């Protein structure tokens, strides 16, 4: 028997092979356009990238807004002031040496303002006022601090210790 038919379709075919060819021949490739059914539903993958981008933008905008508000509120915060509060009605047992202090206070403040006029003239008006107020507070704070340190010095000085020993003795 010649097997060439199986290789290159030459020679005499075997009847069984021919029968198989007839049966399977109906299934061979036939070129034709792809026909998709109309009711076919393709599951879509949702694209979350734009949503994430929008959310990130909103978050950034909120963050920026928050920072801006914070900076703004800090700038517009009420000026911190040194408060020297005294009772409205002077009490009879009040120490007499405190009465003439307030006029001195005023004169010194005016003196300081005069001195600062030239130095602070380059600052904008609002900032200059705030700076002058801060300076007054600073001077007050330094005054209290130096007073306290002076007190420390007085109390820890050897002369004071001898005095205390003398008192005890």
């Amino acid at each position: 028997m010649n097997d060439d038919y199986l290789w290159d379709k030459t020679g005499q075919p075997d009847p069984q092979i021919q029968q198989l060819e007839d049966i399977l021949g109906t299934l061979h490739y036939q070129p034709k356009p792809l026909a998709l059914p109309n009711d076919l539903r393709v599951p879509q993958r949702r694209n979350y990238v734009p949503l994430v981008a929008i959310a990130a933008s909103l978050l950034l905008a909120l963050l920026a807004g928050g920072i801006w508000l914070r900076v703004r509120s800090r700038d517009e915060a009420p000026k911190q002031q040194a408060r020297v509060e005294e009772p409205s009605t002077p009490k009879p047992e009040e120490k007499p040496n405190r009465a003439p202090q307030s006029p001195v206070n005023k004169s010194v403040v005016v003196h300081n303002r005069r001195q600062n006029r030239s130095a602070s003239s380059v600052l904008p008006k609002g900032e200059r006022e705030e700076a002058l107020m801060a300076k007054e507070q600073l001077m007050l704070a330094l005054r209290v601090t130096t007073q306290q340190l002076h007190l420390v010095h007085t109390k820890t000085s050897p002369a004071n210790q001898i005095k205390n020993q003398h008192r005890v003795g």
Partner: protein
Amino acid sequence: MKPLFHINFRTPLLALLLVLAPALVAKAQDSRIQMGGLDHLAAKASQTVDVSIDERLMRLAAKVFSDKDEDEREVKQLIANLKGIYVKSFEFDTDGQFVAADVETIRMQLRAPGWTRLVNVTSKKEGMLEVYLLMNGEQIGGLAVLHTEDRELTVVNIVGPVDLDKLAKLEGQLGVPELGIEPTKKTKKEDEK
């Protein structure tokens, strides 16, 4: 169903901790003392001094100090590196207006690591005076003074590297009038003696 995003919280949390850790350490070393606990004393006090100057105000104030005036120049140099000055001082007409717990709110903060008590003067008549320094290595990082008498409570807190010598030199040069914070009566007596 698989989740859309697999978020591993451990990595960002670690990163956040790494970022925040230096800030937390810095905060722990901050020499700012919280004095808000003393605010209620203002209502009882006959005289209150409340000064709160943060770094921004300090820089702003430095702009108006004159370089021509020697005293002002010294103050300007002194505050150049400071980050804040906070003072609260109360004077009362009668004894017992503040309690030990009020003082303890301040002293408790001064027991934090870094703070060292430099001076402690206690006397029954003249009250108690304590000076604390916050040391950052060899540099002074802050100063606190706590002074109590029967009718007076004063807390001073300077934040930042303070030059104590310069501060001591400023005494009597500032041109700021007497505020009656220091017990002038006692100093007079001492002067007479």
